[in-house]
């Protein structure tokens, strides 16, 4: 479980996050949604320690991550897997080397065990015969899958996904969503997903947090989001005609 408590974050002339408190449950997909520039990515960066908060706390299973020293933070970071918006695969490494990299760095596995683990992770994300390809040689959807395989290589307790569907076609988006859902349930991990994709919200959103102007504006689940009367949330969710039709059919 991850708990964010009274988080404030200000940059030079701007308050980006204002008193954010959220609990991200284990074994569930916790979605963070919101408009561009609302502070979602900043919140995620604070949670993984890439940015320091102005004030507030981030607890990983009760341990205050913000208060930890650099070396202690590293120990928690080893339990975190992250899928980046642009996949962030290492260009100079092949697909297999990308997945193997955290194992080489931190595990005491034998060569054979590492090889098996890489095979397992790539198979788990349905990537076969891509081991020796470089990131520049694979598609966007494949990159996301390699990113997930790398994120789960070290058996993480926490998985962060920053806009996992951005730049993907609808079918591939569903594949990635399902993969995140399966992995979360299979390994009982705490998954935090930032998304703009309303299809993902409806498909996989166990817990949903709507960030609006740097504030925790609304919290609920995928059933509640379709019934809410919150104006700002409705403006965001039903921005497209397609979603308006869904709401209409849902209320009928």
């Amino acid at each position, binding site marked *: 479980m991850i708990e964010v408590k009274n988080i404030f974050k200000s940059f030079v002339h701007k308050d980006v996050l204002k008193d954010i408190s959220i609990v991200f449950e284990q074994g569930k997909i916790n979605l963070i949604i919101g408009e561009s520039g609302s502070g979602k990515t900043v919140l995620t960066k604070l949670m993984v320690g*890439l940015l320091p908060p102005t004030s507030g706390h981030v607890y990983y299973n009760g341990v205050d991550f913000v208060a930890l020293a650099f070396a202690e933070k*590293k120990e928690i970071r080893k339990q975190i897997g992250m899928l980046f918006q642009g996949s962030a695969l*290492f260009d100079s490494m092949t697909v297999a080397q990308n997945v193997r990299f*955290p194992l*080489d*760095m*931190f595990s005491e596995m034998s060569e054979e065990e590492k090889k098996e683990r890489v095979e397992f992770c790539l198979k788990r994300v349905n990537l076969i015969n891509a081991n020796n390809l470089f990131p520049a040689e694979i598609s966007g959807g494949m990159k996301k899958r390699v990113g997930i395989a790398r994120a789960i290589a070290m058996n993480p307790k926490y998985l962060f996904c920053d806009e996992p569907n951005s730049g993907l076609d609808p079918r591939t988006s569903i594949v990635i969503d399902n993969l995140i859902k399966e992995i979360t349930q299979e390994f009982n991990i705490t998954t935090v997903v930032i998304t703009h994709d309303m299809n993902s919200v409806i498909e996989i959103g166990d817990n949903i947090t709507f960030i609006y102007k740097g504030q925790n504006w609304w919290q609920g689940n995928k059933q509640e989001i379709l019934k809410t009367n919150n104006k700002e949330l409705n403006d965001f969710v039903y921005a497209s005609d397609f979603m308006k039709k869904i709401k209409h059919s849902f209320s009928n």
Partner: protein
Amino acid sequence: MTWLTNIGKYYILLARIFKKPEKWSIYREQFFLEVDKIGIGSLGLVSIISVFMGAVICIQSAFGFESPWIPLYAVGVSTRDIIILEFSPTVVCLILAGKVGSNIAGELGTMRVTEQIDALEIMGINSSGYLIMPKIIAAICIFPFLIIISMFLGIFGGYAAGVAVHAVTSYEYIYGVTYDFNTYYITYALVKSVVFAFIITSVSAFYGYYTEGGALEVGMSSTKAVVYSSILVLLANVLITQLLLS
């Protein structure tokens, strides 16, 4: 005040770079990759420049020494001293600042803007240590070899050109090259190459590592890396020369 902030950030980065590595074997592997990239990858450029510059230095010396009072072997002496004292350790390092510096800044800048550095940090890896330390150590180890090769090729280029255009005879050139040779010059040149290697790699890495933005900013970081590392190399050159030769 930006320059003061940058100096502070540079020293903080250096402190992070030289922290204990997570796994020595991985860093060792990276070190050899960098030796190949920085050293072997620069060998062709260094060789071509050294041969031609040696040739030009020899011909210019011969042209300037056209006096019955100056013995012809002085062409060999001056070519040797110019190449060993200044051309190989300083000019070649300035050229390497362009090649290696822009490469390092471009590579790290691209890794920064494509979130690859963030990915390393989240894995619990000291990204600055993993990415920069092998580059600095590889350059410190390989630059002196490149400079020694440059010295040999520069002197050889002078010999080949001098003899070919009949500016100097083979005997006089070789006599001049070996005449009253001070081995301390080699020590001086190698000390300079080690210091310049550190400046070029660390300053370029600094500008690459702290890149913010996109492709345009990566290009700007590469330019800054080359400009500032070249200026610092020239400043360090004056300081080292005063310290070691005065």
